[in-house]
């Protein structure tokens, strides 16, 4: 705006002053010419007078006559300050007869001059302004038809004054232009100074905005123009809204980012060029690629090292359908089985999730090994039963009833074992299914222990094993399913007797220091290694397979103890020193 004003203002000022000067000049010129015409009329009158005066003396005028009158007139008039006059006398043909300044013979025909021509054509008087051929300046010519005589009197006077006026006007006009423009520019500067400063500070603000600073607001002061004020106010309120919205968005984005980043599952986003453009923290750690793909996108294959996944991505891009497939991929630690889930996004991106299957694989393995174990354990007694039945049937050699009795005894033992095994399996699956036990009642734990000790007395006596329960406490009221707790005692004590040397000892201790009851069963039997103690609670795990089966164990006893402990919010632990001692501790919340 200022720039435009600074350009156009001087232009307008110049034009105005020039036009004004021109008008003045023409006005002055007209006036001056009018005045000069009057003067020339006066000269003519004077001349005419002189002619009339002289005509009293003679009736015919000769050239000399005219010359006399001419010089007389000029002299007379110059006395009264009408100077630089020129008088020319011409005949009706346009030939110069007398001229006050020049020799007539040297002058050419004047017929074509406008003032002369006008008189010849019949006018009484005529004037013209033009540059004189002879004098070279602008001259006012005025021609008259002299009465009665057929001659033309032409009086002329230079218009030197006009050129003087013109020069002055030009000079003062120029000065006026310079002064006006200067004043105009100074005023302009002062008027726009404030706005200019404002705009400059706004410019700074805007460059900050360009760099992403949304907190800028436009300032204003007392002198700020109305338009600028209005503009900056609406700008400020718009900025307020934008900043608020931006902050909201940022908060949402940060929230989302935090959400995705803290996901304990690897998440990767791949674009249609098969480049990774986003990974969450878990994915980076899992594949040990600590590159920020938002800054440096890299091919998907660098992350997974499986080209087959690239073709899957292309398939998802084409079909726009989620694909789930299982692959073993190389991770930072080891090769791991994953379920790779690829789902298309709205844009041409694919979200890839890697679901770790190793736990599931482990579970699958456990299940199948359990089934294998169960079948094996069930088949062993059955085979032996069938074997002896077969022998009894086909072998005619067995004649003595003693022998047959012996065989039947074995069959009975094996059948008994089968029943026990099935009981244990059912019991175990029963416990596993439960969250909370049923048949809860209050009973005395010490009394229950005594009951179990009596039940196992015969077997202990066989191996001359002494069972030594701690004397304290004598009474401990608990609340649980009595059969389950009894099962724990029986299983632990049975093991302690079974895997003990002849003449060994078993110590039993019960205490309840707080919420939990601790049952400790210690024996000084064979014991086992540390690696075995890690697996001892697994189903069908046996340290020495043949011996254990000989002793009639199902391989599920400790597993049942463990699951009962878990049912009562507790746990079971074992500490064993080979050939010295074994201590089982069961913690129960009863």
């Amino acid at each position: 705006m200022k720039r435009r004003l600074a350009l156009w203002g001087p232009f307008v000022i110049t034009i105005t002053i020039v036009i004004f000067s021109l008008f003045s000049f023409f006005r002055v010129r007209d006036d001056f010419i009018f005045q000069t015409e009057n003067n020339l009329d006066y000269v003519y009158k004077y001349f005419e007078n002189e002619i009339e005066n002289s005509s009293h003396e003679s009736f015919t005028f000769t050239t000399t006559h005219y010359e006399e009158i001419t010089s007389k007139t000029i002299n007379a008039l110059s006395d009264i300050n009408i100077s630089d006059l020129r008088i020319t006398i011409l005949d009706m043909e346009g030939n110069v007869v007398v001229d006050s300044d020049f020799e007539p013979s040297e002058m050419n025909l004047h017929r074509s001059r406008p003032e002369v021509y006008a008189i010849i054509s019949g006018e009484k008087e005529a004037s013209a302004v033009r540059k004189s051929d002879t004098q070279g300046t602008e001259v006012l010519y005025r021609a008259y038809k002299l009465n009665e005589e057929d001659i033309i009197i032409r009086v002329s006077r230079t218009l030197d004054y006009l050129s003087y006026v013109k020069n002055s006007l030009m000079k003062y006009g120029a000065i006026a232009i310079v002064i006006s423009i200067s004043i105009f520019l100074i005023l302009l500067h002062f008027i726009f100074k404030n706005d200019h400063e404002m705009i400059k500070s706004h410019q700074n603000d805007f460059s900050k905005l360009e760099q992403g600073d949304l907190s800028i607001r436009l300032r204003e002061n007392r002198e700020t123009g109305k338009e600028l004020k209005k503009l900056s106010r609406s700008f400020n309120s718009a900025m307020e809204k934008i900043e608020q919205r931006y902050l909201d968005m940022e908060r949402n984005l940060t929230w989302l980012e935090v959400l995705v980043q803290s996901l304990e599952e690897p998440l990767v986003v791949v674009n249609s060029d098969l480049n990774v453009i986003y990974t969450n923290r878990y994915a980076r750690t899992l594949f040990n690629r600590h590159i920020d793909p938002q800054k440096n996108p890299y091919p998907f294959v660098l992350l997974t090292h499986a080209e087959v996944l690239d073709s899957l991505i292309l398939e998802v891009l084409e079909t726009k359908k989620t694909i789930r497939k299982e692959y073993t991929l190389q991770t930072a630690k080891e090769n791991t089985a994953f379920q790779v889930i690829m789902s298309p996004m709205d844009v041409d991106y694919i979200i890839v999730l890697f679901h770790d299957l190793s736990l599931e694989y482990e579970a699958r393995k456990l299940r199948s090994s359990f089934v294998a174990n169960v079948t094996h354990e069930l088949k062993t007694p059955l085979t032996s039963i069938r074997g002896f039945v077969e022998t009894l049937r086909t072998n005619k050699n067995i004649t003595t009833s003693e022998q047959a009795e012996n065989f039947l005894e074995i069959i009975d033992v094996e059948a008994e074992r089968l029943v026990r095994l099935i009981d244990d399996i059912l019991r175990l699956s029963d416990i596993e299914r439960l969250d909370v036990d049923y048949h809860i009642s209050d009973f005395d734990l010490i009394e229950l222990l005594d009951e179990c000790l009596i039940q196992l007395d015969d077997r202990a006596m066989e191996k001359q094993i002494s069972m030594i329960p701690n004397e304290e406490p004598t009474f401990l009221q608990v609340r649980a399913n009595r059969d389950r707790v009894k099962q724990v005692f029986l299983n632990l004590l049975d093991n302690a007797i079974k895997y003990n040397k002849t003449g060994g000892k078993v110590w039993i201790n019960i205490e309840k220091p707080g919420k939990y009851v601790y049952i400790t069963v210690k024996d000084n039997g064979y014991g086992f290694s540390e690696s075995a103690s890690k697996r001892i609670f697994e189903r069908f795990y046996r340290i020495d397979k043949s011996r254990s089966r000989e002793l009639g164990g199902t391989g599920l006893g400790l597993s049942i103890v463990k699951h009962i402990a878990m049912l009562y919010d507790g746990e079971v632990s074992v500490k064993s020193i080979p050939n010295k001692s074994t201590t089982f501790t069961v913690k129960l919340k009863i």
Partner: protein
Amino acid sequence: MSQRITYQQELQALHQRMIRMGSAVEEAIHMAILSLIDIDVEMAKKVIAKDDEIDDFERSITQDCIMLIARQQPVAKDLREITSDMKLITDLERMGDHAEDIAKHVLNISRSEKKITIPYDVIQLSNQTKAMIHAALDAYVSRDLEQAKSVILMDSKIDKLYQNMKKYLKKQMRLDPENVDPLVELLLISKHLERIGDHAENVAEWIVYYIEGEYATSSEIKKEIKQERKKQEQADQE
């Protein structure tokens, strides 16, 4: 203008192909090491097959680089990128060759009648090598100067492990002269692993060249890093 855009796209595509090649090399080395640890013949054969793929990468990327130089006349950073890429692929391809050689030695070991256990030192050496190529690739992808320098520093550890391995194998050979064949194979495998480390170091050097615009040998870079650390320590002390 449109020509420049395609030029930038071509450069980008070149970069991505380089990463793909690097990924293939890393995979080959990984597989070679797996085949070594388990003396897995099938895996070793896969590694040998993988080398062809890497060679194809080398050929086609070299071609791409030459075409780019011829058609676009790159200058400054672009030119540095293309030239360093051309040097890089040679190193990458060599690494692939070493992986293939390791696989071949594994096949030899599997053929020998004597069974040997793979010493823990070899596994350590191979893990270190793997970590180094992994870090070098990371540095290449993110064009990270610090990471590239750290790769250069990793090489000394590999050299040390290799020397230990050599001593150990010499001792074993003296103790058990009948079992020399597989032990020699192991020695060669260690050498290949050590060479892979050297190539990874070269890769890191070229990354430094690309970023800084000046070619410095690894010893110079190491010196520089040491000086920087000294300064840092002094500053810390003050």
